[in-house]
């Protein structure tokens, strides 16, 4: 599949499907994964990372630093992980 974008700075849009399936199998070997499910898992990951990034950026802006630091991410992660519990 030709999914890569033209600009090299952008990240490629291919989903690491094999990685996701392998990780799922390692964690839950007794479960099976359906065909389209890993794509939705990938979507879920993207959304999670997106939320995390937004929150970290907000934290960094609040502390008026140009660079995102560890503590920004830590605080953001606590919040977002709680949200993503389901």
């Amino acid at each position: 599949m030709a999914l890569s974008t033209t600009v090299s700075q952008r990240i490629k849009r291919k989903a690491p499907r094999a990685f996701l399936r392998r990780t799922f199998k390692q964690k839950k070997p007794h479960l099976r994964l359906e065909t389209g499910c890993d794509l939705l898992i990938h979507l879920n990951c993207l959304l999670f990372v997106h939320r995390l990034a937004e929150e970290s950026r907000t934290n960094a802006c609040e502390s008026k630093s140009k660079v995102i630091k560890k503590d920004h991410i830590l605080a953001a992660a606590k919040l977002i992980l709680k949200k993503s519990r389901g």
Partner: protein
Amino acid sequence: MAGRYSLDPGQTPRTILRRVLDTVDTRSPRRRRSTQTKRLEEQTPRTLLKNILLTAPESSMMMPDSVMKPVQVPEMVESSRQESSLGSLELQLPEPETPSTLAPGLRATSKRKQRLRLSIFQQEVNQGVSLASEPPGNADASSLASSFNLSFVPPPQSQSVKRPGLARRRPKRQPVDVGALLQDLKNNSLTSALPGDNHRSPVATLPMDEVLEDTQPFSHPSAGGSLSAYRSLPNPSPAGVEGSEGLVRHRMRSAGTGLQHSEYGGSWLGAKLILVNRTGLGTTPLPFSEPQPQLPELREAVGSQEAVEAKEQEGSSGVEDSPGGPASPELSCSTNDLLQAEQPHQFEPPPPSGVAILPSGPLESVPARLPSRTRTAGPRHHQDPYKAGLSHYIKFFSFCTKRPVEKAALGIVEKCLDKYFQHLCNDLEVFSAHAGRKTVKLEDLELLLRRQGLVTDQVSLHVLVERYLPLEYRQLLIPCAFSGNSVFPAQ
């Protein structure tokens, strides 16, 4: 106005056009026109006019570059003509400009002889490399077209095959016998084994000394490289002092720039040996100021150099059978000691301290590198693919933040993702168990997204899919109706 056309009542625009065409024919190459004139009877005035446009040569001069690319079109035009279907000809009409500009490029070959020579040369070059299937069409036009086509074969490929001297290939290396190496050092005059690109490559490739593995004999990251590097040097070749000087300069620079590699330490010592050796051959100006005062002294020392090398052979022969990293520091240690022991009076105090300092640099780095090399052998297959997969999301993270992120902070993102995956799998298990299934299905994931608050009444799953996933995945996920009363993926 009407009177003009009443000259000859028998003349129609069609015959006028034909007459014009015939007169034009005499000027253009026969071969191509013959197919045209055959078909005059079948052609309409419109196509005739188009032919006139095409045969209007040398009026629209094009740059040969722009002629090249669209030349592929006239070969299609050619083939379509030979099919003798007016319909296909009609299709070409909507773009009258391109054929008109292309045709002069094709027809006016006589005018482009000078430029064509280059392209013919290139054609020959490319034909040597790649097979070009002759496109259907007229022989001449197709050959021209194919020559133009071939000129678009990516040049680096042809060049790399055409001129092997420039090819970036690592010279063949064998496991080295250091004793023989030193013998060769002593016997042969050292010239650059690699031809002129050795001059060019040191300057150009030194900044990327680790990445390129081609012309630099010392950039081999393995520990055996330091030994093999010696081997690649003394190829028997006619004495070229400038070449050896370039080599020495190259090594000196490499020793200066890449001190963190063991082979550079080894190469530095090799450079010292070479220096000593070469001064026996003749005096050449050396780039370093340190060795220069030693020159007159070293000339006397050539005799003792042989003694040194004899000793080094003994020392190295004991070492050479143990390949790998531990050999190189020992080797460099031994050679260093031998050098210092045998010629203390020849080297002035600053250079020995320089000697001591420089090898100690790479020597320190080598023991530091060695344990890392052995350590990563074990847990690599567990860590690396997992981390490699996560790195995708980490990159996405740094993309989303639009701000620079600290390196240490990325480690936290990794841990965070780990926890997230754990939660995710647990949740999916719970959901599927709740539904009495052992397979995780799409509805489980949809439920998960809903519970996470990502899918709401306002934002549906399909919206998210469309927003974030590329098209190919979206086709797999969102049912779409296709022709024939079918829906994919089936619901």
